[in-house]
């Protein structure tokens, strides 16, 4: 059974409609986001399902997953906090911000909190260099920017997630 196709029939069609009919493969990246929403990460099953929809091999799907950093082939924390520590942000203290945030959470960059809620990652420039420290939160549902942050703010945000059922 092709869960993606059956559960999201309309959405899949809308995505396919963006591209010429003989260029179905172009729908790969949007479908991967859809799969990530459905499964939380890009599972092998998702690769097979997408391959089937687009008439390409699971390996071709996997190659694209492997290339781009916003697709994940492994599950991690429900919220991925991705802190920019690239040069412009680093010039404004983002490395210190990351360090303190991690200390507060008791993890190292790249790790997930024990409750499985938060993974902290370092990322390259997010095009928000004038509002450092900045991080984005990636969840299966999408991405949200948080700019001009302090560790207190960030911890407050995390606590709101913790208190959600």
């Amino acid at each position, binding site marked *: 059974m092709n869960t993606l196709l059956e559960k999201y029939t309309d959405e899949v069609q809308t995505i396919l409609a963006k591209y010429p009919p003989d260029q179905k493969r172009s729908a790969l990246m949007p479908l991967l986001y859809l799969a990530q929403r459905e499964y939380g990460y890009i599972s*092998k099953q998702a*690769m*097979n399902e997408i391959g089937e929809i687009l008439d*390409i*091999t*699971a*390996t*071709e*799907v*996997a*190659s694209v997953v*492997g*290339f781009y950093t916003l697709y994940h082939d492994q599950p991690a924390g429900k919220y991925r906090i991705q802190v920019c520590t690239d040069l412009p942000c680093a010039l404004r203290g983002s490395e210190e911000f990351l360090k303190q945030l991690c200390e507060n959470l008791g993890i190292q960059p790249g790790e997930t909190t024990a409750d499985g809620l938060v993974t902290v990652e370092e990322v390259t420039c997010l095009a928000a260099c004038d509002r450092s420290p900045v991080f984005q939160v990636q969840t299966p549902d999408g991405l949200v920017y948080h700019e001009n942050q302090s560790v207190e703010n960030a911890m407050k945000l995390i606590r709101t997630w913790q208190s959600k059922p």
Partner: protein
Amino acid sequence: MAKLVTLTIDGITVQVPPGTNVVDAAKKAGIDIPVFCYHPKMEPVGMCRMCLVEIGRPVVDRATGELVRADDGSVKIQFSPKLETACTTPVSEGMVVINTSQKVKDGREDILEFLLTSHPLDCPVCDKGGECPLQNLTMEFGSGQSRYIYDEKMHSAKHVPLGDLIYLDRERCIQCARCVRFQDQIVDDPVIGFYNRGRALEIVTYSEPGFDSIFSGNTTDICPVGALTTADFRFGARPWELNAAASICTQCPVGCNLTINVRREAISQGRMAIKRIMPRQNEWVNEIWICDKGRFGYHYVESEERLDQPLVRKDGKLTPVSWDEAINLVSMRFKQAGSNLLTLVSGRLSNEDLYNIRKLTDSLNGKSALYTQMGGGDVVAQVGMSTGSNLANLGKGDVILVIATDLHQEAPIWWLRVKQATERGAQLIVANARSTRLDRYAKYPIRYAYGEQNNLIAALVQLIDPQKFVDAKAIKHLSEQSIIKDTAEALKAAQNLVIFFGNEGSGVADSQVLAQTCAILLATTNHAGKPNNGLIPVWQRANDQGAWDMGWRPPTDLSTSIKEANALYIVACDPAGDDPRLSLTPDFLVVQDLYLTPTAKLADVVLPALPFTEREGSLTSGERRVQRYYPAIPGRTGALADFAIAAQIAKACGITLEERSAAKVMDAIARENADYAAISYTELANVEEQWPIIGRADLYYGGTSYENKQGLGMQLQNAVQKGEPFQISLPELVEQSGEGLLAVPITRLYDRGNTLIPSQLLRTHLVSTVMWINAKEAKQQGVEEHDVVQIECGETSALVTVELEDAVPDGVVLVPRSVGIPISEPCRVRLHITERV
């Protein structure tokens, strides 16, 4: 032809066609530009940056469009400040290429150093050692020492099975993408790809079941380092210890040229043993590729089960005897049988075997029969591919028609070459009752009901020439279809026309008619007898065409012929294995084969033959190219070549037949058979220079495919080409009829034939005793996936497992050939469920 472009490379002036890249142009001038990622059979990608050269171009005055000249009158050349990649740069008029300057050398040393920093340098234990371009280029261009910090090198997995045939050493991979591009662009089976990016790029497969592609072995040939190796050869030997013998693949009618690498083996008591099978270049046949069946399916020749002594039944048991005793007994009984002798052979034999055995049988007044499920070889002799043909010449304006065959499974390299012709612009018509993998490239995919193939071709003929098949009711519903009308138009407009026909959905008689209708189509469109035109039969065996050419024909009714015979001489076929109920009970049964097949077990005398790897011979491909193979290793004592056995029997019967060498037998064939008049072993050994240049220890690296030094073979002239009259009359057409479920045998690449089962490596790929049915029909028939059912066809039946497959038409079940299901022609069947899991 387009005007040639003139350029100079290291001072040497070269002329090449426009569009040629600098690497190839240099090669034509005998200059090696080193490459890793560039492969002459694939589009250049310019990734590895090894082929850097200095390039200068004439300066043109913008205003006048004239060349700017220096004071001495010479054309002013402007060099670009950067080195350029020769593989991606097309030549242009007046270009000046420098391949030897210090700047160029430094550039290459830089690139090599980068490549080596992430390479494990485990050459002493690498299978590619000795034939590795990275090693060779390092000797040539490397700096001799690495300045990089060794403990920070990449380390990654070394023995990664990408499938059960191909292994990957991630450390050795230099990310040239040759393998990925081969799978993607050349064979359209992208089941391996890159994962990650940057320095973490690695080859992976996420397909199920892994790197499972019938051409996978070729990636190990073109991998420029030891990253990809076959499960067959890994750690098998070092390339420089190997001897090479030229051979021809005997697995299908394409006739791919092979090199067999052999070595003296301690484990086989110092005998010579085959270490691997490699492609040998023949741009007319297989270019530089072979399929995995040809590469990995040879192990039967070294099977422990092989016979090495004649056997004679004594007290009910097959008992070893001397050759003299066996031959005397056989000759005596054959003479007694006279016209009641029936000789049954298959296209597994060489031309020389087929000739001698035929001579023997004829001299004794015996009957001869070809064991085959397909007809039409005589038609092919009239309108087959003409001398001077090459599928690689087909392109824009040409049409290829493929009917009643699944080329991908039956003749993989033809599938590949047809696909490539479509990429060059040829229009493809694929007609079959079901979809096959070739449909992807077809401009006109045509579906008909099994049994209608002859009528379809007749309908096309009728549309093109209304005078033919005038009143045929059977074709009306076909010729009215718009796709068939369009197809007829395309055929009419074709510059060249090649037709492949098979026997899917036909018996022997029906496929004979198919050959005729196809021949008529060729004649009607005025394509018969011309180069790059003709009829190509997709036989099941490598030398079926040779058998027809040597005068062998399938019997109208095999089982009756067998029943009527007193003595049976069965060579290189196993009718009892294919159909256990066939009654093989003549007074005297002689079987000549490699092993004790089910048929041989019934024999009174068993004569051990030599496989193609241990003797000489020639084969005639479906394109009617005669090619010779050479002995790769000495013949096992106790066994003899088939033609020699026949000659010995003949001698004992008082008949003289050539037995000294296959070459001499071929001379006899040439004297007697007008089609083969020009053929001799010397002629067959002729070679000419081929492009691309491959297989030498060049820096320009085309792969480990072997250069062809032992012969390209000769394509026969067909009757029409020779100016003989076209002698095929319009066959009678019959309307499709019959009620009930139709079982159709189909050919799968990895069947369970005697010549494949002994290859352990391919074991998991072999098709099992299944039947394919579509889901709707399954419901109708009350069967479910995985059910074991008794499939009954008249008197015979077999147990098969049900597999669902969308591509099977309604009212039909497909069964594989050569797996022991005794259905050799389409037949109406009944199903009984015997087991449900």
